[in-house]
């Protein structure tokens, strides 16, 4: 075996990427349909289904909070990883800078969404 091998920390980012990929595949298209098509055009769903009081109540419930947090944070980690590797694939090897911008923005957005969701109270 080669000596001096260093364990890669990629599994952390790969797991977040995989989790985000799984979640976006499962709920992404339906969320786009509900929030982008059904609600604005008044299709299928009852009126006021996504009204402010209802959505606030949803985000104040711990389960709703967890769902909103997972969708925002994991989607972003997925996107960050995808964009970072696509940069690498197209020949832009910005290294640490690209890494910081991609994963850093996902990290900051994760903290912000956690802060805002907790700020809404229970």
């Amino acid at each position, binding site marked *: 075996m*080669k000596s001096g091998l*260093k*364990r890669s920390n990629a*599994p952390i980012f790969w*797991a977040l990427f995989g989790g985000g990929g799984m979640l976006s595949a499962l709920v992404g298209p339906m969320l786009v349909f509900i929030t982008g098509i059904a609600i604005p055009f008044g299709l299928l769903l009852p009126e006021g289904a996504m009204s402010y009081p209802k959505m606030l109540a949803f985000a104040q419930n711990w389960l709703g909070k967890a769902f909103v947090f997972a969708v925002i944070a994991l989607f972003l980690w997925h996107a960050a990883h995808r964009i970072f*590797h696509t940069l690498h694939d197209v020949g832009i090897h910005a290294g640490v800078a690209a890494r910081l911008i991609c994963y850093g923005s996902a990290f900051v957005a994760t903290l912000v969404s956690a802060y805002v969701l907790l700020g809404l109270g229970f």
Partner: protein
Amino acid sequence: MSESQKTIEIEVLRYNPETDQAPHLQVFQVPFADDMSVLQGAQYIKDHLDGSLSFRWSCRMAICGSCGMMVNGEPHLSCQTFLRDYYPARVRIEALSHFPIERDLVINMEGFIDKLESIQPYIIPKEKRSLAQGEYLQTPEQLNAYEQFSSCINCMLCYAACPQFGLNADFVGPAAMALLHRYNMDSRDGAAEERMELVAAEEGVFNCTAVGYCSEVCPKQVDPANAVNINKTNAAKDYFLRFLSPKGGSK
């Protein structure tokens, strides 16, 4: 060459380290027949047009893995790639991508050989059996678990196909990972944890971005992309669970 003889143009990437600053292309007119492989075209050039042309070949039947080259930019075994599929257009043959060229179509494969050695490509038994205990028995199901990954002929087409190996030559790469997986999956082997050190390393599986071209060009249907991606899961499990169930090998 009779007048009715059809010919095909073969453009060859030439490089002579003693005289050339950089590789350059040279075109040859080669008599064409329906049953001629690209390798036979190169052999015609060497035998009749320019004896200095260098390339590796041996078996002529896709077993030995020596004659891999880029044919019109795609990695192929030249013995099982036929000129008729390109005729009457010109065919361009070049040394395998992503490897240093030694001369003409011959690449330097030392880096690949080092990688093959680094995965410990041999069975390391869990418990040694004495002669009196007899053979290591295996069921057909246990054979199935690794057989596909044992078909690799080390032709390196997958390395020429892999964009990530092209960007980072330290990446262990598709064929070596497929062979590593072949030994890990063998019921007689007990060294998966030892090999994990390399799988999980910075040179390991996480260089792969699941492009899948390696499996597409494989002339033996080994599916190295599958082996690499199964081992991403294994390496991730090892990463997160290593503190729960500490094992030897990987650090």
